[in-house]
């Protein structure tokens, strides 16, 4: 993986793109929680302020580091960008600042090369919507893909394991919900397609 360092503290910076109501902030936090339990001593996650109306584009961020995180400013040059809703690729300028060699992880039924996105970064795609629908993570007709995308993150970066994700869900959700969310994440893990480019490892 890639990290953005000021010097000795390597920090992996992740930006989430989603829409109000999709749970991007929750995922950003769940990722921090999971990573902490994978011995990343330094984890933070935060929303970016904006009108969080349902459907409106929003972002969130997660920082992961082996040492405590001492940086709270907004992420300018993310190592990883996660996009919960592929329509945002075009409208929200999701790849802005993405570090050369970084990863773009997109929820889409398409393969990475089908996205037609150029750039000095690798691309992972996963059909989290399919996974969420499959396990029944559907709220008023809409698939809840945010937790599923943790599976894609795990598969892509190998920074966290599916096991840890499961543990996090079990700490945070009811047993039943944890199971469902875990199934979606693990299915998404399986469905993840990777396209390595640039200096990404």
């Amino acid at each position: 993986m890639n990290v953005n360092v000021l010097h000795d503290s390597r920090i992996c910076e992740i930006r989430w793109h989603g829409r109000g109501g999709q749970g991007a902030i929750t995922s950003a936090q769940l990722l921090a929680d999971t990573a902490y339990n994978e011995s990343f001593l330094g984890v933070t996650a935060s929303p970016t302020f904006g009108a969080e109306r349902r459907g409106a584009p929003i972002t969130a961020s997660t920082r992961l580091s082996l040492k405590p995180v001492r940086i709270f400013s907004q992420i300018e040059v993310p190592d990883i960008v996660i996009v919960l809703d592929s329509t945002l690729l075009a409208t929200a300028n999701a790849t802005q600042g993405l570090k050369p060699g970084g990863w773009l992880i997109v929820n889409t039924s398409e393969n990475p090369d089908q996205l037609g996105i150029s750039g000095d970064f690798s691309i992972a795609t996963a059909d989290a919507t399919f996974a969420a629908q499959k396990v029944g993570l559907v709220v008023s007709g809409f698939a809840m893909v945010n937790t599923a995308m943790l599976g894609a993150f795990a598969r892509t970066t190998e920074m966290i394991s599916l096991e840890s994700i499961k543990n996090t869900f079990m700490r945070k959700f009811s047993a039943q919900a944890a199971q469902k969310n875990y199934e979606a994440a693990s299915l998404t893990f399986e469905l993840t397609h990777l396209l390595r480019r640039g200096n990404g490892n």
Partner: protein
Amino acid sequence: MGDDNSRTLIITGNEAAAIGARLSRVQVIAAYPITPQSPVTENLSQYVEKGELDAQYVAVESEHSALSVCIGASSVGARAFTATSANGLAYMCEQIHWAAGARLPLVMCCVNRAMAAPWNVLNDQQDSMSQRDAGWVQLFARDNQEILDLVIQAYKIAETAYVPVMVCYDGYILSHTVMPVDVPTQDDVDRFLPSYTPHTILNPDNPRNLNQVTLADPRVNSSGVLCHGYLEFRYMLEEALHDTMQIISDTNREFTSVFGRNRGDLIWNYELDDADVALLAAGSIATQATVAADELRTQGVKAGVIGIRSYRPFPKEALMEATSKTKLVIVFDKSLSYGNEGPICSDLKSALYFSEMRPMVHGYVAGLGGRDIKARELVEATYSSIEWLKSGESIKTTGWINCQI
């Protein structure tokens, strides 16, 4: 949420504050929602409704009333808590002064946010800074762990000195950002924090009349004892604030012994011992300044950081000592006393006025209304101040970080 083992949770600053209040076994909570404080009150109402916290939760109709409820509750001997931000804090202003003058050991979290007009719900510290005169202890948290720790310590400090304590932390930057926080057990907290003993209780068995009109001159009571005039009460309030310097130190020492965590005293330092340049600030920006200091050191500038934990009382001696070996102190204020300068910068210069090794001091205003502050900008500001120092010019007006005007 059981409370049996100390454990690390990945939580927001607002959750840390709410848990701190719960562990402190607050008895009366009165709060009014305002961004970014609202989750504190939501969490607390949840604890109460779930039965996890045995307290009266009063959903007041305004912040003025929130603090009024706390004042009433504290006056009959209940431990009281509130939290607010920005306009909410300003709307309490009358009662902020009141609580201090009445010597009530309340604790309030101020989730720092910019003051309107214009509206802006993001972080700076204008809100709590603008209330710094009123006779409250003001503590600033650098991260979420410190929020939780300070809320618990705040009750100890408050109830020792009989002064109210404001725990300030940056809105969004801490309030809405999750990070690891070690949550102590209730048992440990109970060991650290005894229950509250008020200095005067309103009680029908021994009727007292509190906060009455107090005259300009001392006055004899019916037993012939000369009692304070208004000025003497104010002298005692100042004395108490002064005494809290020691109490804050002692409290921190005790806290360390119970919880095994020492996050610093009135101030905290980072890489300061051999530093030529000290970056000084309060709150999360001080944490970020440590990254800037690291960067400056890799570039050959001996930089360190001084973090303000206690802004009121203002730790003059500690700062004199801490800056005694530095050539330059750069102060980052997230607020401004308009028509003068940043309050921390101003207070620092005043404190160092008689210092033998008077370092140069340069103040910056940063981050107003949520303007993002990068560690790199702190580094740049440091270089710019060093330039000034080299230039030999004596006066430099307040700098503004990332002002795009």
